[in-house]
């Protein structure tokens, strides 16, 4: 009996250790097995080789996350004094913009630059006029921290949201253990923004429904191509996939007071060739997002078209062509939740 008692505990201990080892190994295999490779984006031919492309289909995204993002997008608590939501400057009733030359931030402060629309923003290859944000997520963090805009911080925002049981529950449901953080907030918002795609009559036209555009609009479309507007304003967003100097054929800034915002991408790269270079804005919904340009210098589409023709194409455009192109540009106004944007 004594021999048994003395001999067996080590063996039991070892057996226990062996079991723990096996379990650990299995766990390791399972977690190490979580290797994923994102698939390649589809090859170019799929999206088409023509200058203008129809709007891609809305992506399939988790509904819970989208709903959470939507709530955050409309939540004023993201600003320092609970006065301003994302939707404050990206007003859905105003084409996803504020229709102001520059946005009014917390406490009536004004920013340096015209706010672009949030609709279809997901299709931009980079965000902001100067492209300083590589993704929607990065972009979303920007205004929250900008003292001229929402003037808040993640610390502040997270604290406010955590006091809301509904948010805590929603975040736990969507993000499990990650909870409420700056990263999860912008992830939710960006996810929501990826759903903000607006189909327009022009898309129907591109898909073969010729009568979706009026004869004037069709003429405008042709002019748009002929003048070379479509050299920069191309792709599915009619822009948003490249940078270009404002004033290619003539010096737009000659005789103007140069503000920091006017330096454009130079502010980001500090390279001389990027001075006055801006992201080519997408033209979808352009008719409802006045005023135009980074400095909001054009109040009307006609004005904007004329400025573009002169400084970017180096052409003087007859009025009837301006009229036609503007008509075409109006056909780019899309619908959101079944209603055409106003």
């Amino acid at each position, binding site marked *: 009996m004594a021999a048994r008692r003395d001999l067996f505990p080590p063996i039991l201990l070892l057996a226990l250790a062996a079991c723990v*080892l096996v379990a650990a190994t299995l766990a390791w295999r399972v977690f*190490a097995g979580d290797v994923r490779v994102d698939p390649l*984006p589809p090859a170019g031919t799929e999206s088409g080789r023509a200058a203008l492309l129809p709007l891609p289909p809305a992506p399939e995204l988790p509904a819970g996350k989208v709903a959470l993002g939507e709530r955050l997008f409309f939540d004023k608590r993201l600003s320092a004094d609970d006065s301003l939501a994302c939707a404050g400057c990206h007003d859905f009733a105003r084409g996803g913009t504020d229709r102001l030359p520059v946005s009014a931030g917390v406490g009536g402060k004004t920013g340096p630059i015209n706010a672009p629309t949030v609709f279809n923003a997901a299709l931009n290859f980079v965000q902001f006029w100067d492209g300083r944000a590589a993704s929607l997520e990065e972009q979303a963090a920007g205004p929250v921290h900008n003292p001229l805009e929402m003037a808040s911080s993640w610390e502040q925002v997270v604290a406010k949201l955590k006091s809301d049981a509904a948010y805590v529950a929603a975040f736990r449901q969507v993000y499990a253990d990650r909870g409420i953080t700056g990263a999860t907030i912008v992830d939710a918002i960006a996810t929501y923004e990826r759903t903000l795609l607006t189909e327009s009559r022009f898309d129907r036209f591109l898909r073969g429904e010729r009568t979706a555009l009026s004869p004037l609009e069709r003429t405008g479309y042709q002019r748009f191509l002929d003048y*070379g507007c479509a050299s920069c304003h*191309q*792709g599915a967003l009619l822009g948003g996939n490249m940078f270009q100097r404002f004033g290619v054929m003539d010096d737009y800034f000659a005789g103007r007071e140069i503000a920091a915002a006017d330096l454009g991408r130079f502010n980001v790269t500090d390279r001389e060739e990027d001075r006055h270079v801006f992201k080519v804005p997408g033209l979808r919904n352009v008719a409802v997002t006045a005023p135009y340009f980074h400095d909001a210098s054009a109040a009307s589409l006609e004005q904007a078209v004329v400025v573009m023709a002169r400084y970017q194409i*180096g052409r003087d455009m007859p009025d009837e062509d301006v009229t036609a192109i503007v008509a075409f540009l109006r056909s780019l106004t899309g619908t959101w939740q079944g209603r055409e944007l106003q």
Partner: protein
Amino acid sequence: MSEIALLPRSWRSVTLIGGATFLVALAGLYFRAEAVDPRQHFAYAQQLRDLRELDARIDGELLANRLEFTRNYDALTRYTAAAQARVALVDDPPAYLAAASRASVRSAAAALADSIARKAGLVDSFKRNDAVLRNSLAYFPLAAANLLDVAQVPPLPAATRPRIGNYVRSLLAFARLPDESAAAAVRRARDQLDAMPFAPAHRPLVDNLRRHGEVVLARLTELDRQMADVFALPTGSRLEALNQAYGQGHGRALEQAELYRFFLYALVVALSLFLAWTFARLERARRSLETAHREVSQRYAAQLAAEKQLKLHATAFRNAHDGITLTDADGNILDINPAFTRITGYERSEVIGRNPRVLKSGRHERDFYAAMWKSITETGSWRGEIWNRNKYGEVYPELLSISAVRDEASGQLTNYVAVFADIGRLKAQEQQLSMMAYYDALTELPNRALLADRLVQAIAQTRRTGTLMAICYLDLDGFKPINDTWGHDAGDRVLVEIANRLKDGLRGGDTVARLGGDEFVLLLLGLSDADECDTAMQRLLGEIARPLTLLPDPVTVSGSIGLALFPHDDSDPDTLLRHADQAMYAAKQAGKNCYHLFDAEEDRSVRTRHNRVERIRQALENHELELYFQPKVNMRKGVVFGAEALIRWNHPELGVLPPIEFLPLIEDDELIKAIGDWVIEAALTQMDHWHAQGLDLAVSVNVAARQLQAPEFVEKLKVALFLHPDVAPRLELEVLETAALEDVVQTSRVIEECRALGVRFALDDFGTGYSSLTYLKRLPTETIKIDQSFVREILSDHNNLVIVQSVVGLASAFQRGAIAEGVETVEHGRLLMQLNCDLAQGYGIARPMPADQLPDWVRGWRPDPSWQAIRDLYWQDSDYPMFIAEVEHRNWIAQLVYAVNEGQPVSRAHLVDVQHCRFGQWYEGNGRMRYAKLPAYARIEAPHRQVHEMARRIDRLWRDGQADDARALIPELLTARDEVLAALLELQQATGQPRNAH
């Protein structure tokens, strides 16, 4: 034990450390061997492949855009972004790469990232330039046309036209083939153009042309340089380098893993060998341990047994009544037992080491001892009486037995054992015992032995004096609670007190004795009559019932007295006592505190009955019981289908007794169950015999109510059936209707249980039990046996005929079979068949017979021809009046015959004319209506008239006082009756119809 324990303790740490090290090594090796995760490898290789693909796609899209094959940058932008994202990922190669490989992979990845980043930068510039160039290239010819071809106001000076044309041409040439010489040509043409003076009106047009031309010149050159830069980027080679670096690293990691795998394998083999070796060792150890354990167990068991025996011996030694002395070979005392001390007075310490000679009395001569020792030496033992002296000098006789003990192996004398008993004390005790033998120690009353003496004397005295003697058996009522409440001492005191009261209440010559417990016997002599006895009894009971004061609480007891009066009960002493005892029990039953006189007559009847039941039990044990079998037949089919087993007692003196002679005696006795069991077993055994002879009959056995309701009945039956599997399905149990009705619920439950065993049931003597339809429905018997009291009378009593007919109908309605008992004649059978009762048993078919006769009987039996004749015929209900008429006719004749034979006047009813006797009424009424057309009908009339004629003649003779003559006519009358019946039968046969027509 300590050595064994030490070894495992050192082993313990060795095992623990060794095992742990081993496990760690095993785990380490496993992780090393499995480090190269194929999924990780695949993922990384996929990244590399993706990068190559993306790089190619970027180049392709660049070209496509440059050639305006593609006119948007969506794809280009997307691929560039994807390539940048991917290249960031390959910077972190899988962890299984060795440090050196990892460094080289990372540096290759960094180089690639740089290359991709530069490419992205170039793509960015490309898009800007390409867009602008595209527009200017497209617009330039248009601007030239606007200047040259459109009529200008004022007109363009002629000298300027060639210069403009030259500029336009050189630029277009450059656009087609943008090399340095073409560029130089453009610059020359531009300078020439710049040297020309232009009117202010023309200036903007020229400037516009020149501006776009400059764009083309500058941007095209730059674009082509950028394209060249892009294609010159070492992206491909760096990708290749990265791929190679990774491939080498991966290969090295694989080799490493292979090595570890080999080690792992080696380690596992080693472990297996070690385990095998360990198990072999353990097995060997186990076997040797098992052997050792077995040996030890055996030894232990033997030792235990020995110890037990030793203890036993020691106990015997200590507790022996006889004194025992154990000495060595020299006769020195080694040990004595307590009895030694008791007998001799010597303590153990006083005699150990001394010689038994100390006990010598001196009464024996030297020769006595010499003879004793001679016997011991020669035979090994001596036995005899010897006088010894005890410690106090008293001489006493003892019975001594000395044995020499020799060593089993050497035969050397080792010890002597002396055993002795003090005979003197024995004798003294004997005397004391004989004193005690006649008196009860507690009460000092005579005991049973002395009472017996006294009784014998008292009987003699009573005979002599011609008086009466009462033998009173007294038992105290309420004595036990005293014992229980105050203990036996208190009980004893009460007994003494009662004894004294009894003694005081006696006259001289009377005796009171205590038999034990609280039982006393009194002998009252010289009584003149029963009244005197009565008075004495009352007095005694009064004495006993006086309150007892010797206990803490006042209590009273009473007495129950049984009386036998001699010589009214002239029995021997023992019997008298027994009778008194019996009478005492009767007194107890009568309510205590009274007396009861023994009644010889009552006793006898109880005893006879008891003896007879005993006798039946013996009969069962002596195999005097036997089963007879009465066949049961299907009259219509003419087959024997079964038999009823009936018990008989082959009484040695009284011959064969039917059950009615003995079964009623034991109906309420347990014995009925034993006999019932025997009957079932015997029947089954008999069925087995017949089965062996090829005779398969359904045998029914009668079951008594008591037997059927015994809880173990079904179980016993199950066992019986199990033992006779061949014949079990043909066993049928008959239960009396009256018995079944005693407890319908229980009976039907038992029947159901038996039916589950495949045993069928018949309801015996049906009709005698007043059973209602409800009961019949609830008793799930297969068969109804119509009681013979009805069957026997069907020929003569039309009421019974109706009863039988309705029972048959009832059975048919309940889908039970019906069998008629008591079929005494062929006519009974025939009429039953006509009533659709085809199954029958009775003397008319066969009497119960011993089992060995049955096979022959079955072989020889043929149904009666009269049955055969109507075998296929059936009658309708409307034909029944005809049968009733037949019965009426028989009855009429029978009554007439009875009256004549008994010398009584013939009833007037018999003398009515032909048309008004009951038969006549049927014949003229219902019969004529139904059967007048049949010839057989007409043939009845003549014999019927003849019968009536005979009746009148007999009546007349009777009235004339010629009784004998009248009696002489009876055979003639019967002959006439038979003619009527024969004719009637003919009619019946004519009216019966085959079954299928029915």
